[in-house]
């Protein structure tokens, strides 16, 4: 899941100031799960913006709409009939959603209301943890399905570093040491010998560092 957090209200307020007809558009997928950009958050932000404008004696029209997915054309197309009624779209989608909407409606101003943060997991109600860096070279089968790239502060492929204390990371003492968890899990599964090999660090040059990555699959194309 892609996680995000709402931008500070002041920043959003400044962004939307020039526009009097605004459509606040949410996304019902990842950012809804992390309580940043779903239907509820759209309603809260739109309500707050309407009230703030009212208190400043500004006449604005702020409507709300939430798409099931803001990064897929078929869902974005639902905006086609209404989009011309607005001066701008305030998107509560992730960065991919904002750009996708803008690509579909290139003449429309599309503003981001969220800061997209990381690929994560819902750890508990109200807690989201980064656990995938999207490196493009997954080694989870070796490390007991615990990613040392994303979850070890030092991104070590041949840990532990030796600095952890009470099963906690020395860099972020609030965070469990990923390598402690890897070793515990492999030990339990009787597969600790997997760590006898030396693993080279992630080769970031194969994917990242070459501009935006792209997946193309002939069988999925129309």
């Amino acid at each position, binding site marked *: 899941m892609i996680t995000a957090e709402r931008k500070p209200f002041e920043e959003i307020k400044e962004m939307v100031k020039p526009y009097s007809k605004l459509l606040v558009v949410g996304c019902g997928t990842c950012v809804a799960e992390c309580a940043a950009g779903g239907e509820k958050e759209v309603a*809260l932000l739109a309500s*707050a913006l*309407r*009230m703030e404008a*009212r*208190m400043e*004696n500004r*006449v604005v029209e702020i409507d709300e709409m939430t798409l099931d997915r803001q990064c897929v054309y078929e869902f974005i197309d639902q905006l086609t009939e209404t989009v011309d009624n607005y001066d701008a779209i305030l998107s509560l989608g992730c960065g991919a959603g904002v750009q996708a909407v803008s690509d579909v409606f290139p003449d429309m101003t599309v503003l981001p209301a969220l800061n997209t943060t990381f690929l994560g997991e819902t750890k508990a109600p109200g807690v989201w943890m980064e656990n995938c860096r999207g490196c493009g070279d997954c080694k989870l089968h070796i490390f007991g399905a615990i990613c040392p790239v994303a979850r070890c502060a030092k991104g070590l492929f041949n840990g532990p570093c030796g600095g952890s204390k009470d099963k906690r990371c020395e860099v972020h003492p609030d965070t469990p040491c990923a390598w402690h968890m890897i070793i515990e899990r492999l030990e339990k599964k009787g597969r600790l010998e997997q760590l006898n090999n030396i693993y080279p660090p992630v080769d970031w040059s194969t994917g990242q560092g070459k501009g935006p990555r792209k997946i193309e699959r002939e069988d999925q194309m129309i």
Partner: protein
Amino acid sequence: METKEERQGLNFYFFFCQRIDKEQEKNRRTIEKSMGDKVRLFPIPCSGRIEPIHILRALEKGADKVYVLTCREGLCRYREGNLRAKKRVSYAQKLMEEIGLEKERVELINLKKENGMTIDTLVEDLVGKKTNIGSSPLNKPLL
């Protein structure tokens, strides 16, 4: 502090756990009839059902003051409903402060008595209570 006349002109919205008064349906109608448009009552099955958007919408629709009435902490039939209501009211207050609206416009009241309370008397008491809250800036006409 507002005058009695000003207080009488305020609009109050009440979200309340319907378990605080077994006769809430009858008592709610009684108070709505006697106070008219200045009070709006919203019974909810548990105070844990309250969402920040309910509070914001109430303010947007004309409430000068919003009360969330919950049963006593530790006595929620669903265990944590009133604790969740507390967190959600705090979140709504944070959003209100961001837009420059006084957080005192919403108040959670954790009722202390275990029984014997009726919603009509509670509403009457709270509407009559002195507050520092005047008319909401959202209810003033546009200049």
